[in-house]
Each structure stands twice: as structure tokens, then as C-alpha cells.
């Protein structure tokens, strides 16, 4: 049985003017378990807290009820007061008789009656309170960044600068990501690699950064502050320490027919390759599916020409296990596949290309050496048509429901660059809406129209028809002129929608980070916690969270880094003690609770139990206190009531219900 003290606050006249505090105090003494009751002008004052202190000491109180203002106001104050007097702070309950009573009722009798009931409910709850202690968990002072694009690079650099070691895991042979494939960037038109390459060098050289390229995350265990991650370092077949990056092997490699991933398949690469000249690390990998040595056993040219003796055909995948305190996801995006858009003839004509393919064509290091030409016959185009929103803003299953956000701007960039470099080429853009929210964005678009004479037509294209003479007949509509347009073009560029990197689903599952129907990672709060995942210790950087352009990506990357640093800077994490707990004798191990847990805090283990003499091994739910935030979703999902929430237990809430309805 508890020894409960009830303290009724006047709050000056805020409470006392409407609630008969003396009566409430007197009524308290009739309640079971109450051994002390008093009222005071301001319970939250020093003097008020002293009264509480004294009563705890003198009456050996085991629980407190404070009838005062909202617990959102002073719960912490009274908990601290209790702790100072040696009482567990979680043995305190607040009856909110100000905001929920005196301030909203006028009739003294009515308000007093309600205050007594609220007090009874709090007493009923404190009767079932148990002392709680916040848990502590350690923080491993190391961060993992998944993805080595501009988002991952920026996040890693910022964390490294703050003095914490960071590992980047990048799936491809080089960091750089999508940005390395771009030619110029809007709205400033600076060269993409000119701004990216130094960053790549910087991150590579940073003493706090360790980069695993050609590597993938294999598994993730643990929780905030203490993740254990297995990284699969795929066999590169080249010794990274020995290779000097001279490039002879690539030159001499006889297998040169593999479509280049970096150039979006517009040209080919050798079997031993670095994706692009500025690759970091500048160490090639052998594509074992394309390599003649691996396919037939005969060849070995690269090994012969390598003076450093770096070629190692026997290399095997390596699993690296590392501990991290924080994980940042920066897995980026890809363009959607266009196989469902037959009407735009993408698969029928080589001259219908995507915008990212155009980037490579425009790039000096690209398949055409930066010269704008038709891929079918190498001729210079005279008429170019850009089609917007291919697969974006789409209500059916062919495309994506969202706006890809970057297409309007990069199309303006492309149009402008083409008109600038090839003034004789006519450029027509078919658009639905031109969206340019961003600093200097609309000005940029207007320049394309006004200074460069790009022809913008409001209306979507219905069909692109390849003609026998190699031209492309574009059938579109001009909605403002109310005309149907038939236009012959030499090249058509499709602004295909972007989608999160398909690997993200696998990664999100490993991290128990939630993901939306479009495969974008969900943020902990759409407005207030946009760079955190609901799963503690997981942060989001770049397009994996939603479509964005480079400056936005970089700012988010910095924000994610700050959040990660904030976590790494802590020596220990105090965990909320109001967490869920499963009664092992009642748990069915059915996994329903884990399905609703937003934090992935529930796992299962096989454990031997002694159920009143029956010993058996059972599958049981185990809640990780460090991850559980105490929402209670699991408690209602659990049919047997095995899962309960400390501080808001089933019996406590039922006791409150009973007290109110009495």
C-alpha cells in the first residue's frame, strides 16, 4: 500500500477563486492510501517545494499527487522536488485542476466537484505507480554514411570536420554519384565536376573519413548510439594499395563492349574500368561478368601490363564489421524506366533520349566529346524538342504521383546551353506548368525564353512518331493557342521522373526506418524533424527523403550531419523510462506488436521460461528501452495484454477511468 501525499495548489487565485481548495484537501484525506494532504498558495515556489520535501521526509511518503496546473507546465518541477527528497520522480502524478478545471468553469461547486474527481483519478493512478529509472546507453563515436553522392560526401565532411570518424559506403567503384554525371548546374551554369571534384578529393584525403567503395551494407543490428553494421566489400580484383591509377590496364583490356554505366549506356567501357576519369579512388575494378579471364580462364592481359602488380584475380568479397553511433542514409535517386511510355518512342529511336543522357552528350568527357549530335547518324540536330513531366505527376501506375522538382530547371538549363552553343538549333519545350520556386530560378527560366529564344509551349506531347527519313514527328497540343501541333524534330529529350534508388527499400528494412509508398524515406516529423528518421539514430540526407536539387541536398546533408554530431557528442544516452514491456509468461510471440512499432524497438528471441512449473522454450517479444519512445501502439495490438507501458499501464488507465466514473 502506498503512503500518498496530496498537495493542492491555490495558484494565487487562479485555482482558489473557482475551486474550494480546502474542500479538495479535506476530501483527499478520505481516499485510500492518502496519509497527508495540504494546500498552499504556490506549490511550485521554493516554499511550496519545501512543504513537499518536508512531508516526504516526515510522513515517509511513497507517492505524490499535486493538484495544480497542467503537467506540461510543472510536472518536471515536482518530479525534481520529489527526487531531491529521495523519492523516485516517477512516483508523482499531477491533477490538472487549473487549465482543465478552474480556468474553464465558473460555478464553484461544480468546479470543486470536478477537481475532487480529477484528484481521485490521480490518486488511483499513483497507487499503481512503480519507481522508474531512465536507462543509459553508450554512444559509439563513429558515423556511417550510406551513399557517396554529393549528399553523402557533404554529410561525411561535416561530421569529420567536427572531429568524429566517418565511414562512407558506396555501392559503385567511385564516389561522386549523380552529380558527377551532370555537365553544368543551374541556375549558375557552373561546371558540375569543377565544383564536385575538389569535394571528392577533400573527403578522400580527410583523416577522419574512410571510404568503402564497391561496397554494400549487408546487415544492421543494434540501435541508436550502438549500431553494428556488416559491410560487404566486393572483390575489386585490384589491390588498392598497389594500384597507381596509371590506366594502362584499361587501355589494353581486350573486352571493351560493356555499356558504360556512367555514360548511361550511350557508349561502352572495358571490363577493367574506373567509371570516369576523376574517379575517387582512382583504382579500377574488374567487372567479372565481362572479363574474359573470369569467363574463359584465358587472357590475363591486365595482369601482364600492370607494372605495380596490383591485379589480383583471387580476391574475394570481404565482410567488415564496424560499430557506429549514428547512421546517415544518402542513397540518392535514379531515373525511372521508360518502358511503359511507348508513345514517346524511347525504345524505338536512338534520338529520343532522357535528360541525364543529354547531360552526358553535352559533357566534354561524354560519349560524343561534348558535341551535340544525333546518336543515330551523328548529324547535328536542327530542331530539338523537350518533353516535360514524363512519368511525374502521374495518377496511374505508369509513373509517379509526385513532381520530380528538378526537371523544369534543368530543362531550362539544357535549352539555354544549346541555344548558346548552337544558335542555329531551334529548341521547343512542351510543358504543363513551369515550376521555378528557388533563388534566381524564375529569372533563369525567363532568361531562357527572353534572351535565348527558347520556345515554350503549354501542352503535353501525345506521341512521337519516328519517320522513315530519321526525323521524329512530334504531335503535341498548344493549349493557349488551342491548336494541335505537328512538329518535325531531330532529337527529343524526355524529362523522365526521378525515383529513389531502388536499393533503399532493402536498406530501410535493415535500418527499420519507415518508407513511404513511393520508396522515399519518411522523416520523423514533416516540419520539425525533416532530416531524422522516426527510428532513433538514423538521419536522412538528400533525395532519399524526397526530390530536391543540389543546393537543397547540400543543406540537408549539413543538417543531417549536425544532428548526427549532436548525437555523437553525447557520452551516454538517457532513455525515457516510460517504455513498453512484455510479460514473458503471457507473450505469444506473434509479432503483431513489432508490426506497429514505429521505431523497430521490438525484436524476438527464443527463451526458456518457467510458466508455473512448465518449462519450455518460447518465442518472446523483447523491447529495446533505448529505442522505445513509449507511444503504446504495441500495447493495444497485443491481444493478451502481455505488452504494457510503464507509467501509463493498463491497470493505471483503467483505475483512472474507474475513479472518474465512480
Amino acid at each position: 500500500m502506498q503512503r500518498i501525499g496530496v498537495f493542492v495548489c491555490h495558484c494565487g487565485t487562479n485555482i482558489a477563486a473557482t475551486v474550494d481548495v480546502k474542500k479538495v484537501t479535506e476530501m483527499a484525506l478520505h481516499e485510500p492510501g492518502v496519509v497527508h494532504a495540504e494546500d498552499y498558495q504556490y506549490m511550485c515556489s521554493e516554499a511550496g517545494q519545501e512543504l513537499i520535501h518536508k512531508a516526504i521526509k516526515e510522513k515517509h511518503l511513497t507517492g505524490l499527487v499535486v493538484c495544480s496546473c497542467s503537467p506540461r507546465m510543472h510536472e518536471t518541477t515536482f518530479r525534481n522536488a520529489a527526487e531531491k527528497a529521495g523519492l523516485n520522480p516517477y512516483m508523482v502524478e499531477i491533477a490538472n485542476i487549473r487549465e482543465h478545471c478552474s480556468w474553464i468553469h465558473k460555478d464553484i461547486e461544480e468546479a470543486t466537484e470536478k477537481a475532487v474527481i480529477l484528484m481521485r483519478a490521480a490518486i488511483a493512478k499513483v497507487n499503481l505507480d512503480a519507481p522508474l529509472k531512465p536507462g543509459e546507453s553508450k554512444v559509439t563515436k563513429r558515423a556511417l554514411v550510406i551513399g557517396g553522392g554529393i549528399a553523402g560526401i557533404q554529410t561525411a565532411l561535416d561530421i569529420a570536420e567536427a572531429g568524429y570518424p566517418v565511414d562512407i559506403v558506396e555501392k559503385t567503384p567511385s564516389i561522386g554519384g549523380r552529380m558527377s554525371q551532370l555537365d553544368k548546374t543551374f541556375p549558375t551554369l557552373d561546371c558540375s565536376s569543377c565544383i564536385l571534384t575538389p569535394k571528392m578529393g577533400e573527403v578522400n584525403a580527410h583523416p577522419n573519413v574512410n571510404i568503402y567503395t564497391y561496397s554494400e551494407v549487408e546487415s544492421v543490428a543494434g540501435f541508436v548510439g550502438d549500431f553494428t553494421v556488416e559491410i560487404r566489400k566486393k572483390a575489386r580484383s585490384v589491390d588498392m594499395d598497389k594500384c597507381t591509377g596509371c590506366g594502362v590496364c584499361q587501355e589494353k583490356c581486350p573486352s571493351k563492349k560493356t555499356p558504360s554505366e556512367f555514360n548511361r549506356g550511350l557508349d561502352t567501357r572495358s571490363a577493367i574500368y574506373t567509371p570516369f576519369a576523376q574517379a575517387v579512388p582512382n583504382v579500377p575494378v574488374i567487372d567479372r561478368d565481362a572479363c574474359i579471364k573470369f569467363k574463359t580462364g584465358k587472357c590475363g592481359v591486365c595482369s601482364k601490363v600492370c607494372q605495380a602488380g596490383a591485379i589480383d584475380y583471387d580476391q574475394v568479397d570481404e565482410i567488415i564489421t564496424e560499430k557506429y553511433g549514428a547512421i546517415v542514409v544518402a542513397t540518392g535517386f535514379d531515373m525511372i524506366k521508360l518502358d511503359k511510355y511507348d508513345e514517346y518512342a524511347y525504345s524505338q529511336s536512338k534520338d529520343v533520349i532522357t535528360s541525364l543522357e543529354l547531360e552526358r552528350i553535352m559533357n566534354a568527357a561524354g560519349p560524343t566529346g561534348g558535341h551535340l549530335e544525333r546518336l543515330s547518324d551523328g548529324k547535328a540536330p536542327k530542331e530539338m524538342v523537350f518533353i516535360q513531366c514524363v512519368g511525374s505527376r502521374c495518377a496511374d501506375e505508369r509513373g509517379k504521383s509526385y513532381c520530380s522538382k528538378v526537371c523544369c530547371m534543368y530543362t531550362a538549363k539544357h535549352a539555354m546551353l544549346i541555344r548558346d552553343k548552337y544558335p542555329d538549333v531551334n529548341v521547343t519545350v512542351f510543358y504543363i506548368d513551369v515550376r521555378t520556386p528557388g533563388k534566381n530560378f524564375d529569372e533563369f527560366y525567363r532568361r531562357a525564353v527572353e534572351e535565348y529564344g527558347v520556345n515554350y509551349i503549354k501542352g503535353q506531347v501525345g506521341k512521337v512518331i519516328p519517320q522513315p527519313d530519321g526525323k521524329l514527328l512530334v504531335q503535341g497540343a498548344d493549349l493557349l493557342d488551342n491548336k494541335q501541333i505537328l512538329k518535325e524534330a531531330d532529337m527529343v529529350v524526355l524529362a523522365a521522373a526521378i525515383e529513389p534508388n531502388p536499393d533503399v527499400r532493402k536498406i530501410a528494412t535493415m535500418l527499420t526506418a519507415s518508407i513511404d509508398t513511393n520508396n522515399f524515406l519518411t522523416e520523423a516529423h514533416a516540419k520539425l524533424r525533416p532530416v531524422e528518421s522516426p527510428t532513433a539514430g538514423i538521419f536522412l540526407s538528400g533525395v532519399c527523403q524526397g526530390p530536391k536539387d543540389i543546393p537543397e541536398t547540400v543543406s540537408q546533408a549539413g543538417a543531417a550531419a549536425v544532428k548526427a554530431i549532436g548525437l555523437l557528442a553525447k557520452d551516454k544516452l538517457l532513455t525515457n523510462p516510460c517504455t513498453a514491456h512484455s510479460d514473458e509468461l503471457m507473450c505469444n510471440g506473434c509479432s503483431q506488436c513489432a508490426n506497429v512499432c514505429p521505431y523497430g524497438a521490438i525484436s524476438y528471441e527464443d527463451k526458456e521460461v518457467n510458466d508455473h512449473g512448465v518449462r519450455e522454450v518460447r518465442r518472446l517479444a523483447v523491447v529495446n528501452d533505448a529505442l522505445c519512445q513509449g507511444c503504446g501502439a504495441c500495447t493495444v495490438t497485443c491481444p493478451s495484454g502481455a505488452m504494457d507501458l510503464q507509467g501509463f499501464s493498463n491497470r493505471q488507465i483503467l483505475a483512472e477511468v474507474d475513479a472518474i466514473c465512480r
Partner: protein
Amino acid sequence: MQELINRAKELLADGTVARVLGWKAGDLPYNPEPAYFEKEEDFADFVYNGFCGANLSKYMIEASKLEGKTLVCLKPCDTYSFQELMKEHRVDRDKAYIIGVGCKGKLDIEKIKAMGIKGIQGISGAEIEDAAETLTIQTIYGEKTCAYKDAMLERCHVCKGKDHMVFDETIGESKETKDADRFEEVEKIEAMSPEEKFAFFQKELSKCIRCNACRNVCPACSCRKCVFDSNKFDSAQKANVDSFEEKMFHIIRAFHVAGRCTDCGECSRVCPQGIPLHLFNRKFIKDIDELYGEYQAGADMEPRTPLTDYRFEDAEPGIVAERG
């Protein structure tokens, strides 16, 4: 049936399974009981006929703890329950050898008795191989007949289909027995006035004796300790002292199995007081289908059930009032 027996004996003999879970003939023509068969000679009593309505899935919870595999005979509808139990990790698929047995609709002795047929000595036409549409019943008071269809369990009139959801092999043909709309009764109640609804359920539930047969037979009610038996939740009830407790028990039970109930109909089959308990479960199934998309528990191994899932655009609870 002989094919089933032969195959079971074969699997037992070659050590594939350690025991067979099927039905043993009863001492009356209509009361076979679930039973384990471990030796060749046990099979003398093995039976599989129209009265083998019992869903053996639930027995597999205990059988999963035994040494070796258990061969279990599951009817098409039973396999939904089994799969749902697999999903909830309550049975071990590796410990089960499932023979999907054919079904031509199971019989309800209560329906036969309700026709005024009493003093039953023998029933023919209930064997699984019989093509007969009629049951011939020998009684102390003379021979009676009734149509097979008229003696079928309610659940067979709204059969989910002839396919087994999970099995190692199947033996025997099934027959399409569905001839009624699954939600017809629910709709009839929905159309009533609140007073009529209340009177209807008050009357039905007043018969409840809290024997817990519905709960204990239910494959979805597989809790080691039911909330209604547990002091931990402050919700233990052993008897219905007030009519409120009848409602509390049945509403909460239906709620706890909502999204997990396969509509196997065992609750209604076993209720000694003939309470149409499936009306609770089916109401939830209907609501789930209408509000969150058609869903059949036990038809797949997707971990999330309708109540452990959501969509942003889900209906608001106010829809209940709006629907009227």
C-alpha cells in the same frame, strides 16, 4: 478416405512423420473426435466424413512442440487458419506435414436435430466418397431423410473455396458448396433500427454461459493467457454476472481477432447455446473489406494485417455515424 489412410500409414512407416493428426470415429454416428494416430493399428478407428468439422489447425500449436513432424489433415478452410498461425509464429511449418483433404461441406448435427430427428442410431450419406445429396438417418423412431445441403454448417454455405492455402500434398476432391452471400445476415442486422439491433444481440447474448468454447476452439484466439483469464489487465471474467459482461467479452474477443479471423466458423459451430458468433467476426471482416480493401486473413503470409497497417487516406471514425 482409404487413400488418405494408406498415405498416412506410408508416411508414418517411412519415418517422414512421427504421428498423424486426424479424426477418430466416435461412439455415435456423428461424433468423431480429433485424435493422434501413432501406430498402424490405431487407424482402425480413423475416420474422415461429413461430421469431421473440427479445424485441426489449432491443435498444431501443441503438436509443433512435439518431437518430429506431425501429419495433419486440413480441409481447405482450415488451411487459412494454419497459415495465419504460421504468420504469427504459433505453429512451426517444419513440424507439420499437411495433407489437404477434400471437403464437400461439413454437417451440423444440431441442424439435423432441429428438424425433429431424434434417437439417431445410424447415418448414411455422410462419407466423403458418397455422391448422395441426401442423408438417410436411422432412428429409434424410424428412418428419416434430409438433404445434405440442409444439414450443412452455416460456414459451408459461404465457403471460401476449394483451394488449400498451404499443403504438402492434397488427397480427395472438394465440392463447391457456396450458395449464400457471406454478408447477407450482417447486412440484415445493419439495416435494423438501433432498438432492434440491441434487442437482437441482447437476446442472443443472454444465452451465453461463458463456457469459453468459442474462444478455446478459435485458431486466432491462441493467447497463452487470455485477457479475460488474467488479473494483470483487471479484466478477468469467469461468469457473466451482468449483461454488460456478455457484450464486453464478445466485442473484445471479436476485436482481438479482427483482421486475423479467417471466418472459419468454428465459434458458431461449437457454441452450446447456438449463438451466431460469426456475426461479430463477419461484421469486422465486412468493415475491413469496405474501408481498407478486401482482405482474407490466412490467404497470404504478409506480416501486416488490416489493424497493424494504415493508409493516410483511411476513413475517419465519424464514417460510422455518416453511414447511418
